């Protein structure tokens, strides 16, 4: 397992697809049906406040699929997951200036901030990546969450190849391209982070000078 981890992300990705393909064959359960009573409850229970409009509870295909964990974890769900991942993969744009790695210092600040996009924020409140909420990144920050894997020595362990660059870029832009129900927000898809900010986060993980890779 350790070796698998250390080799390359491409291998991981292949294992991934392999498992997915196996799962397509059987199809037993189906996605939960729309429940008018539940929908009525949701509609009547919320109101718009500031930048948080009611459209935020209109689900897209990915959210609908992942709101039904029983189906999502079934064999039939696995086939649907591949479909969802394809939809999300198609949204990813590679950097317009061809640059994958920006400034790790700004990246660290973005990773630290969990702010933005709530009804107490404004449209101009900078949105943070909130990365430390879920990931260990620079070991110097002891207050980190564990919903996601540790990213300490991210580049040092994986190397700095274009393959790793592209995979990481994609994963930050839209994590659901690889794991339909990843807990990680789709930072580019919902315009939470812009291209420059993602380049800076990339630097935190993949600049050999970044404290993460020491």
């Amino acid at each position, binding site marked *: 397992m350790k070796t698998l981890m250390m080799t390359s992300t491409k291998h991981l990705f292949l294992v991934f697809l392999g498992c997915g393909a196996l799962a397509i064959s059987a199809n037993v359960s189906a996605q939960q049906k729309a429940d008018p009573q539940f929908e009525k409850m949701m509609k009547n229970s919320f109101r718009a406040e500031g930048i948080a409009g009611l459209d935020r509870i209109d689900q897209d295909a990915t959210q609908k699929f992942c709101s039904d964990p029983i189906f999502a974890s079934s064999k039939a769900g696995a086939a649907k997951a591949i479909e969802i991942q394809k939809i999300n993969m198609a949204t990813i744009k590679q950097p317009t200036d061809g640059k994958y790695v920006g400034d790790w210092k700004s990246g660290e600040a973005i990773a*630290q901030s*969990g702010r*933005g996009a709530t009804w107490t*924020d404004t449209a101009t409140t900078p949105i*943070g990546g909130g990365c*430390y*909420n879920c990931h260990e990144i620079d070991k110097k920050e002891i*207050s980190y969450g564990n919903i996601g894997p540790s990213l300490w020595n991210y580049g040092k362990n994986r190397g700095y190849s274009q393959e790793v660059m592209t995979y990481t870029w994609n994963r930050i832009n839209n994590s659901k391209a690889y794991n339909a129900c990843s807990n990680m927000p789709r930072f580019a898809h919902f315009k939470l982070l812009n291209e420059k900010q993602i380049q800076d986060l990339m630097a935190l993980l993949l600049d050999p000078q970044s404290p993460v890779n020491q």
Partner: protein
Amino acid sequence: MNQQRRALIKYSAVFGLMASAGLISVAQAEEWNKAAFEGKSLDDVFKSLGASSPDKSSAVTLNAPDIAENGAVVPVGISTTLKAEQMAILVEKNPSTLAAQFFLPAGTEPFVTTRIKMGQTSNVYALVKADGKWSMAVKEIKVTLGGCGG
């Protein structure tokens, strides 16, 4: 009377009020150390307390956590085997260094616990005055970021 009035005028309005309300005796109000609370560094506060350079002493115990889950509430306690008449809590990196000071009349145990705010990770000092001499204990308390940060 006249003398007392003059003395009152010197105090801030607040302490004049306190004294005139009879809540806190004039003698105590006189002790309130505005300069100490406005001190921006350890040296400022040491000077204002008349504690030029307190010695570190194992007789003074600073009871506080190594990590505070939130800087808004950091529990800090001081206890000592010395016959303490006065105690103070100082936070090196706070905007105002002195957080609180306590006066312990004879018969009061040399022990106090309170809760303070810390803007960031900092050294915290527990100062104890006994037999006219100041001693201290120091400890770093880490203040962590928490929650979702939003």
